[in-house]
């Protein structure tokens, strides 16, 4: 175990940054070669910040403003194929517009990193956070994780590249961040030194697949029925391997920067002896943790799981943590209309994950915070109460509760 003293020289000065600017600073520290940009808020502020960083001479990078998200994502896919470390990002419907390019980036096993500043899908035009944009990747062979602070966002750009570019993984990486609450909130952020980042993040090496005049190759020629199953199986293996490699990456990070992440896949907050646990993604962690503290003061055994990695899904780890509880409430800041019980997206993965247990906790689902609607501490306390009822077998037929809706 490294001592604190060993970690003091890996941090430079603190800086006032919002979530988008923190990501831009991480892109600078990762010495990204190619950046493709196309504006849509809340992502836009990342490209603003990056263009300034480049103009100030702090990063030597190709900065290409594309004609659309689709072109933007194709540019970074191709940049990745020549061995360049590449970055792009988007939000909401812009993200969806580029989806064909996103899908092929995964099937080509290329590994740019993307920021998804979560935004509601139009119509109606709305800017607030909803997770459906990023969650649309869940079946596409991507790495997908959520940051819940600006500091985490900065660190997960570095962690993301390290994982995505690992020769055993080679998958594109999407870092999601709640629009407004994280992207546009200014905080004091600890900046790692360039030397420390260089130690943690080796240069990108695509190996034999790198397209280059010295290594002329053709990528992704047309194949037919006799190839696709085997290609899919390779992707499947990569996603499985990524799940095993993630803890190693976090161990390297913790060794270098200090013990920042006890559990790589999710933060457990007072879950050890919890009877009832809420599970959520992103910024709802803020009010949820305070709700846990308040209920603990009243002697109620509650906990919160802040799910960081959604793909690969931390099946074993989550099963172990949630399997101890009597009731689990899953907060979906997304929707999956017409799905089983008409719940959100996340609840189905959590319920599947728990199903093999002989003694399963009751699982209930909350849909809330859509389109950036506030979720308050009181809302979280109410969700705990409903989950206690579910655990006691008092669950109504409706397994989904909408939170913060004007009824």
């Amino acid at each position: 175990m490294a001592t604190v003293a060993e970690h003091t020289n890996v941090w430079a000065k603190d800086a006032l940054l919002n979530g988008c600017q923190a990501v831009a600073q991480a892109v600078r520290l990762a010495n990204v070669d190619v950046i493709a940009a196309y504006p849509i808020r809340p992502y836009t502020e990342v490209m603003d910040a990056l263009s300034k960083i480049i103009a100030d001479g702090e990063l030597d990078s190709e900065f290409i403003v594309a004609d659309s998200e689709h072109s933007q994502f194709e540019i970074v896919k191709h940049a990745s194929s020549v061995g360049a470390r590449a970055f792009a990002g988007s939000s909401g419907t812009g993200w969806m517009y580029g989806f064909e390019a996103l899908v092929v980036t995964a099937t080509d096993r290329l590994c740019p990193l993307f920021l998804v500043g979560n935004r509601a899908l139009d119509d109606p035009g709305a800017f607030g956070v909803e997770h459906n944009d990023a969650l649309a990747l869940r079946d596409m062979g991507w790495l997908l994780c959520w940051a819940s602070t600006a500091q985490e966002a900065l660190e997960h750009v570095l962690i993301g590249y390290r994982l995505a570019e690992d020769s055993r993984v080679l998958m594109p990486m999407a870092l999601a961040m709640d629009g407004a609450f994280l992207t546009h909130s200014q905080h004091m952020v600890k900046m790692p030194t360039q030397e420390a980042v260089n130690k943690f993040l080796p240069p990108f090496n695509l190996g034999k697949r790198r397209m280059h005049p010295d290594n002329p190759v053709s990528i992704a020629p047309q194949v037919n029925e006799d190839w696709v199953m085997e290609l899919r199986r390779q992707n499947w293996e990569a996603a499985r391997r990524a799940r095993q490699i993630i803890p190693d990456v976090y161990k390297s990070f913790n060794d270098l920067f200090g013990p920042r992440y006890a559990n790589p896949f999710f933060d457990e907050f007072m879950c050890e002896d919890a009877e009832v646990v809420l599970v959520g993604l992103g910024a709802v962690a803020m009010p949820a943790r305070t709700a846990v503290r308040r209920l603990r003061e009243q002697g109620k055994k509650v906990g919160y799981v802040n799910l960081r990695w959604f793909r690969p899904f931390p099946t074993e780890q989550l099963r172990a943590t949630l399997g101890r509880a009597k009731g689990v409430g899953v907060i979906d800041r997304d929707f999956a209309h017409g799905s089983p019980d008409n719940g959100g997206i996340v609840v189905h993965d959590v319920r599947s994950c728990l199903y093999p247990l002989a003694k399963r906790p009751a699982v209930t689902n909350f849909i809330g915070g859509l389109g950036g609607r506030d979720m308050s501490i009181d809302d979280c306390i109410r969700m705990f109460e409903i989950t206690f009822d579910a655990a006691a077998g008092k669950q109504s037929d409706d397994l989904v509760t909408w939170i913060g809706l004007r009824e």
Partner: protein
Amino acid sequence: MIKRVEVQYRGIFQKNLGKFIGGDIVQIASRMGKVAFSNGRYSDSPERNGIPCKYFAFVSQELSEEELEAECGAKLDIDEADVSVVVDDTMVKGVEPWAWHGVRPVNEKVREKGCLLVVSRHGHDQLLQFIPKKAFDYRLALVEGEASFAGMWVNKDDLTRERVLGAIAAVDPGIISIEAVESYLLDRTKQQHRAEAARAAYNATLRSLRVVRPGEGAEWHHEIPRLPTWREFEAGGVVVPAVPRGFKLGPRGQTRNEGFKRGTSKSHRPVIRFDLCTKCTLCWYDCPDECFDPTDDGLFDVNYEVCVGCHRCAEICPVPECIVMVDELRFGNDDSPWEHHTRDPQGYIKWAEEKKGTDRIHYAHVTGTGVEVRQGKFVPPKQDKGGAAARAKA
């Protein structure tokens, strides 16, 4: 305990000013060993020119960052403010940030004993003609100065930022102290005059502090809208009934969107000398918001409820002194100026000239005059003629 500061600013023109003040508070409070963060009211963006917007800063001495964020970080607006800073005094007439919000009182969020801090050249009593009454005591403080306007990517470095920081320290030292403001400004900029500007504003603001008693202020006549429940509107998205087509000559003769008038976006309004008008139609034709209503005598009335004060009519009007932009705080209502003119032509001219005073805003180009007027200082005709002759020769 949490201290909440809101900065009410004009969209685009003061966007960077609002954000800088929020960020400065975080950095100063952090230097004082407190926990702080700052964000904007997200739904304000994408901002439009002049639309009333908000930036927030949250500061706590005791709470952890996580607890502070839990209370303040996942909310779109605040419930109450310890200090509400208004960086353009014309917003005291009310703020309508976006459709569905309605026109809201500028002091809506100021809590009991809290402070409304206004950058203004006007006095307390003049501002209180417009600021609505509250049910409890609060404080009103002034930072003497003009509204600092810049653009999308820039901030005007006229020390408003530093002076507001000094003033916040004066009205609530529990947020930031004047010593911390000074040391921060010195460390960050190495420029003594910035710290001095903050200190001077601190002293002046202390002198300007005044308690506003319940019942002091204006009657509020705008309704706060109630949003429908999910059962109360048609399925298929938000379908807004179209504004019915309607046109007749005269004031308010055109039908307009009653749901979002945007008149609170303006800091100046056009005052029209109808007696000078040549009926050239340019104001009516060029107004981006169709604020001009044709009248049966060939003139054009202006509807101040929907005018956003963009200056376009004053820029394009070819007749000197016919359309002049005037400080919005000189006006108490949005009544039709054409009706006033028609009712009492001489009285109207006297009224209009009184309102106009002697200050004039100069525009880069005035269509139809052939004369280039430089923005800023008045250029005497003689010198300008020489300039024009010299240019013609060249």
